[in-house]
């Protein structure tokens, strides 16, 4: 390893830092003003890349030259900026006061919508953009060739930083943005036209996302996976830098760029892991990132389980439901039984998340981590230890519980949006491990051959087994929630100062909640692995986490039975509608958005609420 190599690596790091900063800067600006973490920021980046990759070649045909190229890039970013305005007017301005969980979910709905729209508009193929005129020849640095476009990128970062700095310091709009970032109420008190400020901010944020995406076209082909991969990195940058802080984002992007460039030498396949570990480390030391300020929290009791007088017929009803479910194999065909098995499993998965969110007020956005750990725990036990199902399923549960203990230990110091981001990061680390540690986990292909023993093989038997296990687990979890443990968790959610001043060890309770929820989700994951016969990294992915959240939201965070109903509805819908339409994600996305806007209590919650109102 010589000096020139190190220099080239450092330059590579600077180039990716620049791209990352430009995109993340938009996210952090939007968060600062609106306090919304915009999941769809990655989608705007993707749209920027697609637009530029389509638009710039047409422009270059008309008149070839650097000016055209750069004009095309900026034009694409402007188009994305306009989309940002639409997004603000149609959706965001309706959810500024909603709980952060709903904001995240609604903007994730937008992600789904964009995924289908992009394929419809730009086609399913990846699109590689043209190379930049005037920057096609690599230049020589200490005897090594370095792409000159990367140098342009390195310069673009500081230019954008300077421009944003000028915007924030020298314009009236910028002063308002900074004021709003520091103190929202102050802006309201000044009587400024808030709507205009917010729309303007969204334009800037989306413009930057679009610019970040458009600048990529000579380096990477525009593809449909860009949105989630870039949003994960942007989250890390904004969280490490401190949410809302532009200089923080710049510093964080620089560090992460270098970590990626040199991390690749030490752990060739684990750059993602290194990046997320950095985030974990920074948050462990500075819970608000480099330059972030503590967010005022509270008021979370609006979304969560509340005490309800116990229904006397409740146990009877439960037994009746159980009997009906147990009788299902008498009438159902194997396919229906498979669906029913999966619904039960997902219900347990969602219910374990209910313990965190509905009871503890701990908005976890990475619950797939535990589901996946359980599934992989079971599958690895089968693959490497040749364990039977009766050993493998508990192994999955234990692994996920241990994961909950480890991840939870990092999380209990955090709150609000930082906690959500950190759970997401934890899930992404595990996703990366499962994806990149091919020797052990089988990488992208996962692990196959995870089947139950022959006697439990028939669908009906496996269904009944699953029913028994989930029923026991759900019963245990409800007891937990009604017991002092669950009440203490709720107490800490309702009022942390009050909980502490009556002697409750809030952090210990939350940590234990992560262990219990992890184990519950892990059990679900292990059962799922045996029901499908295989595991793969998608079980740990963001969409899996969002599935759990969607089920919760469908069912309602206020009701204990919510997740069960939510799982049934979501899975059944997916099963029946998905084969019928290529627009499944668009429909799902729109449904999520609609749900957040119309039924913030969820379906079950709304029914209950209506009944209580009438009573």
């Amino acid at each position: 390893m010589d000096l020139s190599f190190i220099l080239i690596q450092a330059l590579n790091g600077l180039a990716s830092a620049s791209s990352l900063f430009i995109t993340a800067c938009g996210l952090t600006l939007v968060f600062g003003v609106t306090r919304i973490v915009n999941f769809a920021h990655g989608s705007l980046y993707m749209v920027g890349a697609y637009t530029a990759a389509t638009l710039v070649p047409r422009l270059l045909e008309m008149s070839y030259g650097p000016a055209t190229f750069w004009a095309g890039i900026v034009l694409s970013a402007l188009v994305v900026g306009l989309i940002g305005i639409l997004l603000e007017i149609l959706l965001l301005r309706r959810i500024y006061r909603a709980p952060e969980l709903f904001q995240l979910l609604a903007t994730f709905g937008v992600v789904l919508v964009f995924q289908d729209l992009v394929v419809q508009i730009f086609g399913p193929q990846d699109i590689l953009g043209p190379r930049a005129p005037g920057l096609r020849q690599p230049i020589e640095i200490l005897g090594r060739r370095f792409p000159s476009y990367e140098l342009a990128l390195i310069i673009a970062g500081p230019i954008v930083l300077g421009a944003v700095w000028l915007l924030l310091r020298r314009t009236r709009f910028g002063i308002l943005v900074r004021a709003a970032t520091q103190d929202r109420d102050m802006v309201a008190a000044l009587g400024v036209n808030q709507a205009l400020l917010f729309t303007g901010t969204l334009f800037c944020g989306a413009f930057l996302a679009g610019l970040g995406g458009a600048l990529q076209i000579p380096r990477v082909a525009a593809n449909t996976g860009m949105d989630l991969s870039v949003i994960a990195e942007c989250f890390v940058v904004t969280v490490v830098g401190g949410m809302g802080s532009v200089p923080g984002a710049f510093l964080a992007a620089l560090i992460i760029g270098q970590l990626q460039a040199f991390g690749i030498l030490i752990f060739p396949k684990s750059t993602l892991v290194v990046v997320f570990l950095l985030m974990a480390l920074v948050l462990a030391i500075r819970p608000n990132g480099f330059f972030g300020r503590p967010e005022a929290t509270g008021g979370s009791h609006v979304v969560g389980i509340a005490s309800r007088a116990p229904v006397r017929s409740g146990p009877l009803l439960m037994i009746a439901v159980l009997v009906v479910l147990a009788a299902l194999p008498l009438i159902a065909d194997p396919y229906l039984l498979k669906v029913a098995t999966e619904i039960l499993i997902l219900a347990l998965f969602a219910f374990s998340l209910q313990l965190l969110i509905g009871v503890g007020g701990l908005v976890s956005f990475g619950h797939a981590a535990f589901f996946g750990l359980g599934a992989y725990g079971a599958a690895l036990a089968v693959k490497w230890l040749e364990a039977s199902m009766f050993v493998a399923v508990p192994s999955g549960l234990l692994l996920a519980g241990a994961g909950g203990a480890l991840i939870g230990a990092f999380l209990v110091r955090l709150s609000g949006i930082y906690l959500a981001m950190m759970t997401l990061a934890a899930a992404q680390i595990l996703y990366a491990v499962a994806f990149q540690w091919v020797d052990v986990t089988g990488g992208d292909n996962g692990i196959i051959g995870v089947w139950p023993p022959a006697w439990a093989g028939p669908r009906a038997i496996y269904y009944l087994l699953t029913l028994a296990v989930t029923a026991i687990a759900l019963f245990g979890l409800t007891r937990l929630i009604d017991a002092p443990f669950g009440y203490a968790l709720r107490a800490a959610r309702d009022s942390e100062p009050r909980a502490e001043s009556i002697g409750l060890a809030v952090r210990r309770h939350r940590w234990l909640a992560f262990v219990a929820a992890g184990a519950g989700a892990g059990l679900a994951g292990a059962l799922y692995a045996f029901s499908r016969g295989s595991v793969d990294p998608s079980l740990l992915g963001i969409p899996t986490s969002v599935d759990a959240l969607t089920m919760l939201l469908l069912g309602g965070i206020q009701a204990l039975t919510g997740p069960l109903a939510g799982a049934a509805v979501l899975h059944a819908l997916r099963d029946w509608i998905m084969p019928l339409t290529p627009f499944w994600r668009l429909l799902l996305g729109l449904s999520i958005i609609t749900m957040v806007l119309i039924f913030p209590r969820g379906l079950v919650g709304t029914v209950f609420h209506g009944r209580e109102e009438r009573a």
Partner: protein
Amino acid sequence: MTLLEAKGLRKAFGGVVAARDVSLTVERGEMVALIGPNGAGKSTVFNMIGGQLRADAGSVLLDGVAITDATPQDRFRKGIGRTFQVAQAFLSMTVLENIQMALISRHREALRLWTPARERYREDALQLLAQVGMEGTANRSCAELAYGDVKRVELAIALAGDPKLILMDEPTAGMAPAERSALMELTDTMTRSRRLGVLFTEHDMDVVFGHADRVLVLLGGQIIASGPPEEIRRNPKVREAYLGDTHGLRPLLTSSP
């Protein structure tokens, strides 16, 4: 031995010094009022004694034992109960469950996993509610209560810990005058009969002069006067900070200089 002794407490938020060199004592069976205009630093002092804030300097002793760096949880176990300026209760629970929760924690049963919480310590909780006159609302959701009632629930929660010292940050804010004197009567009786110590802040001067054994006046983070109510009423320094009227004192300054 002195129940509570705070010595030289200091707290700064950035450039704002919210409390400087605050020293005070509370004896058993004594009600001490801490008064001062908005922003004087009263809540800051309360939070340093209750453990919600860590003091930059100074010390807090309870029964002669230093608790300066103890967590709020430790202080609860050592016998400090408190209410907050903005009432803090568990709004998703019923009134009774709020008290039960405190009793469960006091008996160190908060980690129990099986028997339902709502079946534990019902009788004790009902008794505590009866003490603050809230037994009629036991099964109502705490979120439905009027603000003044939440404050009373808070007091019952604080009492559930069987405290030696109660800190009450504006206990009667949001209450009608009749309710106010009822609550303070109650506190007064309990203080005498159980020999509790009470430190409270209050903007209603009738309450202060009707119940406090001693009054401390805080201004700009410093105690500028202390003594029996009658002396404080006549103190010229206090009159300078407050505009006296026939009743006694009314805040003149809205923020510290």
